[in-house]
């Protein structure tokens, strides 16, 4: 049980602390139970689920960089039915006070609608607090355009999910656009309760001996400490533009100081992803660090959220123009 100082309110969801395990880095919840009680987290986001199972991409699926990694897992997942039957029972036994967000995706706006309908139909059975919508998915029918980078498709996907469910929706925004802010605005206009930002950045690594890309699919998504400043920047910008839109900050968080940057930039809670691969205890160490910080300074997560805006002089950060 976290102290009251750590309580994090994200729109309709209250987390016991602001630290969530991010989608794709926490399996379906039970994989970390060896290392620490999942119930001690603020929450966790499941691996991205589609209606149908997916095998994912060919190997190699990860390439390491000096400050992170590039992955092209290809959203391998067990599919909705197997998730409900095989994963949820274990998960319900361990979740405790932690809140579960179900991460969903599809290959077209119609598929987003379909998976949202399945979540809505099983919401009591799975006991989830909300949905995170992974829009960083290629639209197979539209020549593989990334849905999260195309305003029309993005809007259609979010709208479809909203129409199918009354669960709180957080849309996970892609940084692979010129400006993330209009996408946050669009999510809000379509009735999403909040946004998660950022997803991974496009990246590629080339093997200089073999003279070809390392990853089986050629390229993938860059995560890890390398992307921390990008995520903090967009968190700041989105908070400045939409002060009332709840933000789950994500991207490169490995320590409590990193987490605090996101909170100060405007996030209400944060997610830890890649860091948990290297250090499975990253989440609990971050919770302990934030607890210490808040108690030493007699403050709360709620007070800290967005404090960089109030105390700084840049209500709107200057944009670097090269």
């Amino acid at each position, binding site marked *: 049980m976290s102290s009251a100082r750590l309580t994090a309110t994200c729109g309709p969801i209250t987390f016991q602390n602001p630290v969530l395990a991010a989608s794709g880095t926490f399996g379906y919840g039970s994989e970390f139970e060896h290392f620490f009680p999942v119930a001690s987290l603020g929450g966790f986001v499941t691996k991205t689920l589609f209606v149908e199972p997916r095998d994912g991409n060919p*190997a190699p699926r*990860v390439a390491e960089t000096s400050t992170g990694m590039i992955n092209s897992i290809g959203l391998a997942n067990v599919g909705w039915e197997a998730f409900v039957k095989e994963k949820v029972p274990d998960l319900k036994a361990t979740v405790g006070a932690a809140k579960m967000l179900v991460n969903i995706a599809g290959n077209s706006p119609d598929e987003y609608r379909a998976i949202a309908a399945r979540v809505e139909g099983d919401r009591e059975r799975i006991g989830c607090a909300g949905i995170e919508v992974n829009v960083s998915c290629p639209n197979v029918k539209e020549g593989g355009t990334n849905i999260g980078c195309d305003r029309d498709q993005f809007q259609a996907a979010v709208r479809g999910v909203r129409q199918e469910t009354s669960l709180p929706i957080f849309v996970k925004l892609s940084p692979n656009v010129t400006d993330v802010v209009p996408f946050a605005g669009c999510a809000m206009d379509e009735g999403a309760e909040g946004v998660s930002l950022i997803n991974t950045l496009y990246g590629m690594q080339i093997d200089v001996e073999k003279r070809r890309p390392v990853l089986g699919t050629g390229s993938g998504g860059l995560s890890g400490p390398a992307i921390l400043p990008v995520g903090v920047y967009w968190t700041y910008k989105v908070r400045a533009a939409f002060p009332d839109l709840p933000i789950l900050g994500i991207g490169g968080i490995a320590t409590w100081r990193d987490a605090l940057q996101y909170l100060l930039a405007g996030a209400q809670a944060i997610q830890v992803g890649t860091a948990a691969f*290297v250090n499975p*205890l990253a989440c609990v160490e971050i919770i302990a660090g934030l607890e210490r910080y808040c108690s030493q300074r007699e403050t709360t997560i709620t007070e800290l959220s967005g404090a960089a805006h109030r105390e700084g002089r840049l209500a709107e950060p200057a944009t670097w123009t090269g």
Partner: protein
Amino acid sequence: MTPSPTAAGVFALPLASTADIAAGTSWLRFRPPPDTACEPGQFFMLSTVAPSPVAYLGRPFSIGDVRDGEWFFMLRALGRGTAWLRTLELGTMMRLVGPLGVGFARDESKVHRMIAGGIGLAPFLFLARRLRTEQPEAAIELYYGERDARSHIELTADEKELFDTVERFTDDGSLGIAGSVVDGLENRWAEPEVAWYGCGPQPMLRAAAAKLEEHDVDSAQFAFEERMACGFGVCQACIVPNRYPPPRYHLLCTEGPVLEIGKVAW
């Protein structure tokens, strides 16, 4: 005996000692807390507690040996990350996540035959040590190949005692028998009551699996290697094609790293 699952943990331990054992190759040794059980064929993810300047992720290492209460890991500098790990000073705080995965199942065959290529030797000293204790009557054999004499890991007297037979091979003939382990085994593939174990480069494993299947050997366990980001089933990076899908892939870190050769689509 089927390996029983052991609970994985996260250990922060100082690098207790190192020893060079061949060109670019050394033991890393740690003193774990007492009564931390692990099985031959299982592995740990190793990283430094302070973030590395060159390698962000941990690296999977087979448990090389457990001796005098110490964990041994065999490290060969094959890339930037492993080269950097070789430069660490004694006392460096390291993070060990494990023991992970499923190790070698051990039956009561008369002969336990291990075929190793290069750093694929890593899991076999521990396996042999365990078999020696459990099955003192069984014959334990090692067939170990390297590129050349420089890379060849010379076993100590104590290590040699773990085996009834050690045959050594080098590609260039600079030590032991010239040629590959697979060629060197000639007509021994068909021998009865042999439990086979393999670990090494993929081409070696593929060639060995082909020989074994050609001779209708129905059970052989190979320890595989793949890129891993986590080591405990979450990142889904370490896939090996499944011979009998669905699913299309085995996840090496949780279903392996030891797999029966018949499960793999070579």
